[in-house]
C-alpha cells in the first residue's frame, strides 16, 4: 500500500496532465469513430457527395461553355482527344502483341527446324521438349 502511494507520488503533475489530455483525446477519437459509423452519418455523407459532384459538374460545364464560346479548346475537347488517343493506343498494343506472338512462333519453328535438321544430319535422333509458348 505504502509502495503504491510512493509510485503515485513519483508521477509528476506534468505527466499527469499529459496522461489526462491523452485519455481525453482517445475518448474523443472513439466517440467520433462511433459517430461516423452511424447510418445517419453515412446518409449525410452520401447526400453531400452527390451534391458536391453535381456542383462540380455544373461549374466545369459552365467554364467549358465559356472557353468554347471564346473558340478555345475546353476540357470536353481535351477529353475527347484523350479518348481518341486511348483507342489508338489500344489498337497499337493489340497489334504489337500479335507481332510478338508471331515472332515467338517463328522462333520456335526455326528452333524446331534446326533441331530436326541437326538430328537428321547427325543421325543421333535427339529430341527436344518444345518450349512453352506464352
Amino acid at each position, binding site marked *: 500500500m505504502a509502495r503504491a502511494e510512493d509510485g503515485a507520488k513519483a508521477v509528476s503533475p506534468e505527466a499527469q496532465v499529459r496522461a489526462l489530455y491523452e485519455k481525453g*483525446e482517445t475518448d474523443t*477519437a472513439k466517440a467520433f469513430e462511433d459517430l461516423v459509423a452511424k*447510418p445517419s452519418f453515412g446518409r449525410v455523407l452520401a447526400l453531400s457527395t452527390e451534391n458536391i459532384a453535381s456542383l462540380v459538374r455544373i461549374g466545369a460545364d459552365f467554364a467549358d461553355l465559356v472557353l468554347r464560346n471564346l473558340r478555345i479548346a475546353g*476540357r470536353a475537347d481535351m477529353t475527347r482527344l484523350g479518348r481518341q488517343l486511348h483507342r489508338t*493506343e*489500344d489498337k497499337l498494343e493489340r497489334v504489337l502483341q500479335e507481332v510478338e506472338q508471331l515472332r515467338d512462333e517463328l522462333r520456335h519453328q526455326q528452333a524446331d527446324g534446326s533441331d530436326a535438321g541437326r538430328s537428321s544430319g547427325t543421325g543421333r535422333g535427339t529430341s527436344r521438349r518444345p518450349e512453352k509458348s506464352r
Partner: protein
Amino acid sequence: MNLAQQALRAPVSALELTNILLTTDDAVVGATPREVVWTHRSTTLYHYRSSDRSQAVPILLVFALINRPEIFDLRPGSSLVEYLLEEGFDLFLVDWGVPSEEDADTGLDEYVCDELHWAIRETLRASGAEEVTLMGWCIGATLCAMYCGLDRGSEQTPVRNLVLLTMPVDGRGSTYARWVGDPEFDVEMVAEQWRALPGQAIDFANKMLKPVTNFFTTYRRLAQGVFDGTVRKDAYQPMAKWVADNPPFPGRAWSQWIRWMYQDEALVAGRMRLRGRRVDLRRVDQNLLVITAGADHIAPRAGTMPIFDLVASDDVTHIDRPGGHIGLIAGSAARNQIWPEMAAWLAERSER
C-alpha cells in the same frame, strides 16, 4: 526540461515544425533504380533488377487504385522493394498512373482483363520466367484475386504464388458499407458527374473513418515529437508525402468497386462478371499467403477472412499481426517483423 526551458525552446520548435510541414513535398520516395518495361494508357510496368538474383520466379507488385505504389519503395532502409531485391528476387511493379477524365470509362474489367493481364505477360517476357508471383496490396490485392478467379476456360494462369496484403474482399459490416451501401446512394450518378473521382475526395473519406486520429492526432504527435526532440523527419516526411499523393479514381471503376464490394457483395457471392466472364474465387488455386492487420480500419480483418472459405488452394498461409492497413507492411517495424516472414514464404515457393 523545465517550463522555462520549454518556453525558450518554443520558437525554435515552432520553426522546426513549420519546416517539416513545408518541406514534406521535397522528400524523396521511390528512390530504388528501376527501368520502364512497358506502358499502356496511364499504366506503366517497372522492372527492379536484383544484382544478386537467386529466385527463379519474379514478383509482380500490384498496388491499389488509390494512392501511389511508391509505398512499396518508401525510403532507403525502409523499402520493401529494396529488401526483396537483397533477398534475390527480381521485381516488377505495375503503376496505374494518374488517371484523368479521359479514363472515366476505365472499369475494373479493363484493369483486370487488360492492364494486369498484359503486365503479367510483359513480366514473363522481360524476366524469361514461365511463372510469376502476384503480390497485391489493398485494392491491388483484390484485383489480383479477381485475376486468378477469372473464368478462362482451359487456359492456365501463369501465377504460381499469390500474396494478398490487407485485402478487402467482403465489404459487409464495414463503415464504408454504412456510407455507400445504402441503395439510395446513387453511385452511377456520382461517377457520371465526376467522371474521375478526385483523389482528395477519396482521401477525405478514408480519413473520415478515424477523423480525430487522422485530422488532429497525427499533427499533435508530430508537434509533440518536435517539442520533445524525438521527431524523425526522415521517417515522417516520406510517409506524409505518400499519404497526400492521391490520384483520381476512374468513375466507372469506382462505381463498380462500390457496387460489387459494398452494395451487392458480388465478389464473395461469385456473381461478379468481367467482360462476361465470371469471377469466382473458388478458382484461386495458387500458393496463397494472406496478411491481415489487427487494427486495419480500411480493410478490416473480418472483411478478408471469407477468402479462406472460398479459395481452392492447397497451400494457404495466413499471417495476422497487430498494426494498421499501411503501417503493418510499410511501418518502421516491418523490416524486422513481417518482411522476413514474407521473404521466407516466397523463397520456399520460388524455386525453378
